[in-house]
């Protein structure tokens, strides 16, 4: 058995040195994000196709969503990305307390995003009978395009639901990290778990960056609508 030279904590035996382990860790997460791109990609591709086929119905559906909540959520998520990046930064420079506070702020912002999403938007849509499969009512004033509006809301709930699921997983990840950071596990030499979770969190933010315009801002929101 080869004698392990004095490696910092968290060193895995199958690697030669810390640098190889860190590079493998981040490449592994990027490959995982690749699979997530294709996972969301299936939904985005179907969305683009049905939007091309039923644009009027999608515009009606998009106008039924409140832009202000979407915009607020986008700002919340971008702020959480900043605090996550600062958490990694403070780990790099070895400030333990800053790490813990930044991680907690990121979690609070994530929870705020979910709160806005579930209470103000989803609940509101449920009351307005806009949830397909749960009492969706096609309104006469939608005209002939009304028949395809449930398709838009199928996509709305599938995409935002999948995104929310990834947010919940992200918050779970962050709680584990906060406990580890609190115990001082991350040093300037070894902070790979924090960095890898940061990549995941930023990726979930990017998904929302694309979801927001595609769902909320179809064909422009000016008074005349997109016709």
């Amino acid at each position, binding site marked *: 058995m080869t004698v392990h030279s004095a490696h910092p904590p968290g060193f895995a035996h199958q690697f030669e040195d810390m640098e190889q382990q860190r590079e493998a860790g981040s490449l592994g997460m990027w490959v995982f994000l*690749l699979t997530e791109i294709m996972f969301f990609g299936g939904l985005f591709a179907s969305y683009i196709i049905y939007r091309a086929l039923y644009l009027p119905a999608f515009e009606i559906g998009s106008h039924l969503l409140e832009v202000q909540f979407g915009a607020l959520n986008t700002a919340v998520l971008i702020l959480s990305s900043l605090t996550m990046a600062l958490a990694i930064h403070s780990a790099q420079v070895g400030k333990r307390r800053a790490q813990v506070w930044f991680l907690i702020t990121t979690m609070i912002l994530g929870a705020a995003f979910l709160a806005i999403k579930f209470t103000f938007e989803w609940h509101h849509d449920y009351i307005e009978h806009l949830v397909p499969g749960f009492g969706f009512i096609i309104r006469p004033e939608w005209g002939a395009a009304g028949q395809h509006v449930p398709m838009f809301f199928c996509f709305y709930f599938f995409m935002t639901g999948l995104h929310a699921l990834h947010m919940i997983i992200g918050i779970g990840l962050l709680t584990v990290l906060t406990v580890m950071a609190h115990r001082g596990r991350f040093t300037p030499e070894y902070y790979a778990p924090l960095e890898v979770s940061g990549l995941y969190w930023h990726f979930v933010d990017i998904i929302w960056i694309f979801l927001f315009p595609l769902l909320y801002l179809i064909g422009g929101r000016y008074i005349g609508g997109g016709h």
Partner: protein
Amino acid sequence: MSGHIVSVKLYLGIFVALLCLTALTIRVAYIDLGAFNTVAALAIAVVKMLLVVLFFMHVKYSGRLIQVFILAGVLFLAILVTFTLADELTRHWSPTPTGWGIIVPLLSRLF
């Protein structure tokens, strides 16, 4: 790649830029540009994505391998979208020409 420490000032700068772009994309949505509304919204989203990827995710400082992987992911998503869209949108094209003289007018119709 991860050894690189990005200054806090740069992070804040990127953060402000992202907020401005979000405000811009909403503002642009309220102007009637016809088909260009979608193009504008997507262009702004791509710029925001690049900012997050390059600076928050340190891809700007990491090796070419990760950059190639990201491009591969986006390329294969594009393949899925374009080929499926190609089928859905050209279903109603009726095959006009017949016989050997088929490929030339066909190609001209495609490109």
